[in-house]
Structure formats: structure tokens, C-alpha cells
């Protein structure tokens, strides 16, 4: 870098001339002023100039310079370029090199960028900031061999919006169809790692990338580094395993053309399930039309896009959740949640999770068991059928207890008759005594079972009944065996069990 003492004679002359030129201009100005107003402002002007020169800040004359900074990971160096004051030493590429050396930067300097920044700073007399003048190299992780799934298989399927007034269930499909021979995944070979460098020349070791390692499962085969579907079906992926479930695609109604259906995989019925037919499905059932007075049993979810018309004979059991537009006059039970868009009419609906209705969804008549709670817009009607809501209890245990109760009452009645007969002497005494012993033994077994079951009621004392619209008189609500009868119309109300008082309380929401 040039120092002040290194100025050449030519430089000195140029700067002297520049100074003289400026002073000359000021002298001419003074002369002109005297001529114009005839006064003698020269003295005043001089004084004024003197004062001004005393108050004016003294500009610090500096050489051009560069400030550089290293990033925390030492992978980049950024620089700010400051131009030289007039007639002071300008920046040169050497200035930058020296600055880099001072910070022990010895790797990845970008000379083109540096030259460009130096040139612009010197010629435009501007401060240039945040110029990346050196870059290290990030290490590239080693990627182990793995299967890469086809993108279309990973696309999220649309789901029903519980708040929507209308849900187009035709658009709500949880299924991802594949055909036999479709490529599901391609083998991505191992990619070696590459070490990195910091700008100070240090080596950065590479690691091993964490990649998703999905494993092909049922109904798939590996051919030439690709996983392909070995049958038509639905693609499933849970955690790190993927497989194909065979699908039965019924293009018509389930009726006399198809007969009853018993299929281990998923079933899609493009039509309706007609009165009196049975569909047993190991996976999920997706019915695009209505389910009528049929018997349906699924291992997973059940969707009835157009609703369920049970006609007091329909029975639906789902191992997963149930989605339907409406339910009327039907017996429905689900291990999972039940979501009904518009209404439940005079049905027995049972869920081990919760029952939720759409934004304007109503429940009129029937009995609802929702272990973890219920949410609806309206419960009951002015003069309609009775509506009963039971929450907080495992309905399956309750059903078993009711069966035991019925059997127990039957046996108790017989036992009473036998005991009455035993009081009268007769020839059948021994037989009656034997019958009495048998009945008593059977009753004891039922009672033992009841005692065990009552411990399994699996109460959820936090279950709530939420009504966003109106709840009408005579609606019966029970949470964890505590009763509440609605006596007047209530609106926007939440019913919950107050554990302290052991009573159900209704709160406005």
C-alpha cells in the first residue's frame, strides 16, 4: 500500500493545482461582491469566512480501506469497501489480500469479485458493503442406499372439513389407487460423502444424511431396482412400511347382481348397498351412494357419501371411523369417531370416541352413546321423539351389562318359580332342587361377569355435550351415569359433569 511519503512529484503538482484553482474562485467572488454594492464587504466577508472556517467540521482524510468479516461457520468472508478521501491512497487488490491474510483466510477467495468491488469503490467513490469475497465449501453428506417413493403416492388426499355446511364426499377419498405393475419406488444408490473446507483452509468432515428408509411390504415385488405393485389395489404407507391393499371395486349397486359381499381388503361401491344385503369388509368401505337397510361390517373406516337409510333394520359396524351425510332409523356403531354432516334421526348411534355433527347437524330421537363426547347444532325437537345422549361410558361394556341384566332377570324369575314350587311337597322335589342349584350357579356366573365388567366401564369424566344451536326440553343427557333432563329450551350450551357436586351442569358457550 502507498504511504503519504511515497507521493510522486507529479501527484503533488496535481493536488497543488487543484487547491490553487479553488482559492482562485473564492478571490474572484470577493472581487465581484465589492463591485456590486460599492460597500466594503471584503472585510466582513473575510471575517465571515473566518468564522465559517472555524465552525466547519474538519474532514478526516483517509486512505481507502477494506473491512472484512468471517461467518460463524467460517464458510464465507464478506467485505465492506470504503473509498479513499480525495488525494488519499486508493484501495488496490493488494489491500484486500492483506486484509484476508490478516484474518488467516487462505481458501476460496473470489478474485473477480474482489477486483470488481475495488474498481467500483475507487472509481465511483462509493462505499460498497456486504460483498462475499471468499467462500469455503460445505461438506456433502453421504446418502445411504434407499427407496424413493413415487411422488404421486405421497400426495395428501383431501379430507372433509367438519365446519363446511356441505361436504362433497366424492372428493373425500382416503384411497390411493395403483394398478398391478405400477412403479411404487425406485432404488437410489449410495452417494459418497465429500469433505468441505473452511475459508481458513480447515477440512470439514462429512456425515451421513438421514433419509427416509421405507420398506416394501405386502403385494409388492422388487424388479430391476424398482418396487412394483403385484396387484391392483390401494397404496398404504404407515411409518416406514408401504404395501398394497387389494381393492374390490363394485361399479354398480350391491344388490342381486352382486349378492352379499365378503372381502378382506377395501371395497368401493359406486352405487348403493340395497335393502337386505350384507357387506363384510376387512378394510375400509367407501359407498358413493346410500347404504339402505343393509348389514355392514368393516375392519376400518366406513364412508356413506349420500347417507344411511336404515329403515329400522339396518346395522352398521365399523372397526374405524364412520363418515356419512345423515343416518336415519339405523343401528350404527364405530370403534372410532363418527362424523355425520346433516343429521341423525331416530337411530342408535354408538362410538368409543366421539360423535360430531356438521355445522347445522341435528339429532332427533334415538339414543347416542359417545364415550368422549358429542357436538351438534341441535338436540331434540319441540314435540318430537325422545332423544337420549350417553357419554363418558364404554357402550360395549354397557351393552354386555344389559345382556347380563336381561339374562339375570330371566333366571331370577325362573329361580323364584322353582323356589315357590319347592315350598310345596311333591314328587318332583329332587329335580326341582337340582334345577334350583343349576339356576343359582348360572346366576352367580352372570353376576361374577357383571362385577368384572363394571370395572371396565372405562369412564371419561371429561366427556362433554356441546350444542351450538338449541337443545329442546325432554332431551335426556347422561355423563358417567349421572342424569340430566332438559326442562326448557337452551341455546349455545355445554353440558359437563361437575365432579365436585356429582351433577351435570349446563353452561352457556
Amino acid at each position, binding site marked *: 500500500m502507498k504511504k503519504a511519503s511515497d507521493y510522486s512529484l507529479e501527484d503533488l503538482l496535481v493536488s497543488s493545482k487543484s487547491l490553487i484553482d479553488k482559492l482562485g474562485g473564492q478571490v474572484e467572488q470577493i472581487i465581484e461582491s465589492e463591485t456590486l454594492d460599492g460597500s466594503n464587504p471584503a472585510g466582513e466577508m473575510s471575517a465571515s469566512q473566518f468564522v465559517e472556517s472555524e465552525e466547519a467540521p474538519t474532514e478526516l482524510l483517509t486512505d481507502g480501506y477494506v473491512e472484512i468479516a468471517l461467518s460463524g461457520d467460517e464458510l464465507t468472508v464478506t467485505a465492506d469497501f470504503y473509498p479513499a478521501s480525495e488525494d488519499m491512497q486508493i484501495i488496490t487488490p493488494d489491500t484486500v489480500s492483506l486484509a484476508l491474510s490478516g484474518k488467516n483466510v487462505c481458501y476460496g477467495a473470489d478474485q473477480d469479485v474482489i477486483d470488481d468491488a475495488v474498481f467500483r469503490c475507487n472509481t465511483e467513490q462509493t462505499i460498497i458493503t456486504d460483498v462475499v469475497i471468499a467462500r469455503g465449501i460445505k461438506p456433502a453428506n453421504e446418502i445411504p442406499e434407499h427407496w424413493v417413493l413415487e411422488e404421486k403416492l405421497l400426495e395428501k388426499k383431501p379430507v372433509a372439513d367438519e365446519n363446511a355446511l356441505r361436504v362433497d364426499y366424492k372428493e373425500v377419498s382416503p384411497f390411493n389407487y395403483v394398478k398391478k405393475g405400477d412403479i411404487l419406488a425406485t432404488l437410489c444408490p449410495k452417494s459418497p460423502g465429500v469433505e468441505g473446507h473452511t475459508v481458513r483452509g480447515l477440512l470439514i468432515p462429512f456425515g451421513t444424511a438421514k433419509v427416509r428408509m421405507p420398506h416394501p411390504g405386502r403385494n409388492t415385488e422388487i424388479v430391476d431396482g424398482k418396487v412394483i405393485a403385484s396387484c391392483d389395489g390401494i397404496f398404504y404407507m404407515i411409518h416406514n412400511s408401504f404395501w398394497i391393499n387389494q381393492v374390490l371395486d363394485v361399479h354398480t349397486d350391491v344388490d342381486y347382481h352382486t349378492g352379499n359381499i365378503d372381502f378382506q381388503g377395501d371395497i368401493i361401491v359406486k352405487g348403493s348397498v340395497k335393502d337386505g344385503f350384507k357387506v363384510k369388509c376387512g378394510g375400509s368401505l367407501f359407498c358413493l351412494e346410500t347404504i339402505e337397510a343393509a348389514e355392514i361390517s368393516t375392519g376400518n373406516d366406513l364412508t356413506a357419501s349420500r347417507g344411511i337409510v336404515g329403515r329400522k333394520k339396518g346395522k352398521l359396524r365399523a372397526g374405524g371411523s364412520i363418515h356419512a351425510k345423515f343416518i336415519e332409523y339405523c343401528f350404527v356403531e364405530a370403534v372410532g369417531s363418527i362424523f355425520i354432516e346433516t343429521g341423525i334421526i331416530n337411530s342408535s348411534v354408538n362410538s368409543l370416541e366421539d360423535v360430531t355433527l356438521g355445522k347445522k347437524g341435528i339429532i332427533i330421537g334415538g339414543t347416542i352413546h359417545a364415550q368422549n363426547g358429542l357436538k351438534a347444532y341441535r338436540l331434540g325437537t319441540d314435540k318430537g321423539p*325422545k332423544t337420549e345422549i350417553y357419554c363418558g361410558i364404554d357402550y360395549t361394556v354397557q351393552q354386555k*351389562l344389559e345382556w347380563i341384566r336381561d339374562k*339375570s332377570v330371566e333366571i331370577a324369575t325362573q329361580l*323364584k318359580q322353582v323356589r315357590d314350587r319347592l315350598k310345596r311337597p311333591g314328587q318332583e322335589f329332587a329335580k326341582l332342587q337340582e334345577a334350583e342349584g343349576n339356576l343359582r350357579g348360572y346366576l352367580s356366573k352372570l*353376576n361374577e361377569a357383571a362385577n368384572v365388567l363394571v370395572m371396565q366401564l372405562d369412564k371419561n369424566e371429561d366427556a362433554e355435550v356441546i350444542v351450538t344451536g338449541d337443545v329442546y326440553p325432554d332431551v335426556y343427557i347422561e355423563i358417567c351415569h349421572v*342424569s340430566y*333432563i332438559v326442562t326448557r329450551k337452551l341455546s349455545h350450551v355445554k353440558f359437563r359433569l361437575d365432579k365436585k357436586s356429582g351433577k351435570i351442569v349446563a353452561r352457556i358457550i
Partner: protein
Amino acid sequence: MEQKILIIDDEQPIIDAVETIMGDMGYDVQGFTDASAGIQAAIDIDFDLILVDVRMPEKNGAEVTAAIIEAKPEAKILIITAFPTDPFAKQALDAGAKTIIKKPFEIGKVLDYLRN
């Protein structure tokens, strides 16, 4: 100690069934078809649970509940009814009955209340 159950119901077969079933489980069950006699028994003896039918000719379940609760506010009374929204059932709940059980009776609920 043996837990005591009182049942007040005008239908003898219901009383018989409860006596037989709950008796087999080891509970001491006493039944009355006459509501007044049942009330008196409830006042005289400390029962762990009292089952009261909602519809009886002499007195309804709400009246029986009110009479017992007046004498023994801590009494644990369950109302037996075929229809849970029966207005007398509601009155009985208001009078202090704990809950409603459906006819003829609900083993699960009865055991649940005996244990808690």
C-alpha cells in the same frame, strides 16, 4: 360388612329379580311394593343404595325421593323408569335422586353407585 339395598317398586317381579340377582352377589336386599312402607324402612335403616320406581299408584318416585331425602339428606337414591324423560323422573332428580336407571334395572349402574 354386607351392603344393604332397598328397592321400592309396585311390581313384585322387579323386586324379586333385584333380590335374587343382587342377593346372589352378596348384597342384603329388602323390597317394598308399598311406597309408604318403603319410605319408613329407608328412614329407619341405613341403606347403602335405594332404588325407587318412578310410577307407583300411591306415591310417585319424586314424592318418595323427597320424603326420604328430607329425613336422610345423604341417602343415595336411584330412580327406576322405563322412560328416562318421564317428568316424575326429572322431579325425583330435582328432589335429590342421583340418577335414573332403566327398567327393570341396570346392573352396571347399580354396582357403580354401590362402589362409589
